[in-house]
């Protein structure tokens, strides 16, 4: 073995993580950097902000705004309903087997996003879907005559919520577990009612977790493209489909615009995940 001091001073420990770093560099960091850089480059290779300016057309702005609205609404509904279910499972005094079943089921359905979800949705609430026909034949209610439309805003929210709720349940349950029983007992000893306990102790403690998970759900919905493509055949005007069509067929007649669109998407999901990380570190103060 060589014993020179220089040899020993080199960061040999880094070699152990070299394969991983190489992998992350080649297949995660460099492609992303390429896209970000490409957003600021024009046809001659020079620096330009033109691509970014070109995003602010009505068509693209509408697509992004729709994506943001859709993601936020489905995240909010998923957050509230998921929180309710998680509360019921952890603190609701239900038989203990319910928790295992709900957790497994949440694990399955949160991964059931994408194309099969769209099929299930059409098979249920489509024109000749199970629930549609059920409502029509048993209750005489024709939801389509009442204006229901799968491709409407609320129709899409309903589809997205399908995988948002289980994700919320999976993430928030450990946080609710972290609410120590001692806090509840201490609050009761000091004379607080159930409502006061929730308002002044539990919710402030859970707050960062709730907000952080909301941000995560938002980013999750924002990047989701397979479900929407399967539902509409890539005609829906949301940001990821716009990027998909731009990559596939250059529908916007400007190759550089693809980079700018991708960059804008990264910015939005980056901010959202940044919120999640900040909130998570604050939550970990109380819940270890």
């Amino acid at each position, binding site marked *: 073995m060589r014993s020179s001091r220089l040899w020993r001073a080199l960061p040999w420990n880094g070699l152990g993580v070299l394969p991983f770093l190489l992998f992350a560099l080649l297949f995660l960091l460099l492609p992303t950097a390429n896209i970000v850089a490409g957003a600021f480059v024009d046809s001659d290779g020079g620096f330009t902000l033109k691509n970014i300016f070109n995003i602010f057309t*009505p*068509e693209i702005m*509408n697509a992004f705004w*729709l994506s943001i609205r859709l993601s936020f609404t489905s995240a909010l509904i998923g957050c509230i309903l998921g929180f309710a279910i998680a509360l019921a499972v952890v603190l609701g005094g239900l038989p203990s087997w319910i928790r295992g079943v709900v957790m497994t089921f949440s694990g399955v359905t949160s991964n059931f996003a994408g194309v099969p979800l769209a099929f299930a949705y*059409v*098979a249920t609430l*489509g*024109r*000749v*879907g199970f629930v549609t026909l059920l409502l029509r034949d048993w209750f005489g209610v024709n939801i*389509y005559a009442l204006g229901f*439309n*799968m*491709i*409407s*805003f609320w129709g*899409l929210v309903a589809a997205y919520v399908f995988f948002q709720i289980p994700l919320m349940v999976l993430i928030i349950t450990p946080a609710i577990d972290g609410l120590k029983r001692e806090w509840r007992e201490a609050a009761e000893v000091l004379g607080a009612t159930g409502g006061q306990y929730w308002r002044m102790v539990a919710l402030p403690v859970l707050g960062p977790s709730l907000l952080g998970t909301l941000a995560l759900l938002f980013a999750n919905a924002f990047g989701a493209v397979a479900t929407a493509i399967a*539902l*509409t*055949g*890539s*005609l*829906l*005007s949301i940001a990821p489909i716009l990027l998909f*069509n731009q990559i*596939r*067929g*250059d*529908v916007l*007649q400007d190759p550089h615009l693809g980079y700018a669109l991708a960059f804008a998407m990264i910015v939005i999901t980056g901010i959202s995940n940044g919120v999640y990380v900040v909130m998570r570190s604050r939550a970990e103060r109380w819940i270890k």
Partner: protein
Amino acid sequence: MTVFKTLTSGVSLLAMLVAGAASAQSLDEITAAAKAEGNLTTIALPHDWCGYGAVLEGFKKKYPEIAVNELNPDGSSADELEAVRANKGNTGPQAPDVLDVGLSFGPAAKEEGLIQPYKVSTWDSIPAEAKDADGFWYGDYYGVMSFIVNTDMVKNVPADWADLMKPEYAGAFALSGDPRSGNQPLMSVMGAGMAMGGKPGAESAAKGLEFFAGLNKAGNFVPVAGKTGTIAQGATPIVAAWDYNALAWRDTLAGNPKAEVIVPASGTVAGVYVQAISAYAPHPNAAKLWMEYLYSDEGQLGWLNGYCHPIRFNDLAKRDVIPADMLAKLPPAAAYEKAVFPTLEEQAAHKEAVTAGWDATVGVKVE
């Protein structure tokens, strides 16, 4: 093995280039060179479009040494051109060799330098209006725009474009794709525009956009790409498609649900598609062999079997080569007699106006 194949194909290509530069290649030379290349990459050829499934099988049976790599079967004409653009200099499996795009996409591709010229041996029997004089693109088949209707869900079949505005068709009508990128939906818009009184060209675009804006506002337009699946699942009970597609889809549905194909009474527009070889084709000889096959009697009859009118239809009929039962299966000739075949200039003007104005005018918003 791949290196060896590349070397042999490279050597034989070089030999071809040297030998073929002086004179046009003979069919035998092309066949030998194509077999040496061993691969053909096609794009956007659904198996139920003009019977392409059977045509591809026929080609594979005739030349078993050539493996056919099919890309993106649901791709649109614009997707095909973008695939050529994105794969300049790429000799891998994502680069298409041959294209089948709408008529208006041919000259655009030629101008951009995306395609290379080739005149098949049966070149002279292709009508002059349907091919590029220099041989860059050449018509392959045509059909007329029609509606396919899911009669389980829609009781009164619409007879014309104007009928679609009726309130009974709420949430019922869809195009087969995005009119800014696909030729079939683009020509559907032209059909609608012509039915509203516009002449093919910028007028048909303006009136067509107006029609679809109205349809969207009335709530009768569904912003979903209509196809067999969506027709059966009820999302798009009425779809505008070429008659050959509509008939093929009706066959696929096999009565469950029941479907009917009708040609609208006015605004009967006929559309020609064109074949072309990519200028950056990784397997140019295989591409040429594919073209020779398509334009042989065997290939043309294959398309006829898929309810299409092949471009050499008149030539085949004159030489009495078409089997009588195939002829009987074709859509009725009455629609073809009053169909309008828009010229290149008209189609180009229409395409430009629709691509620019679709989002702003029709403005499909999700509420």
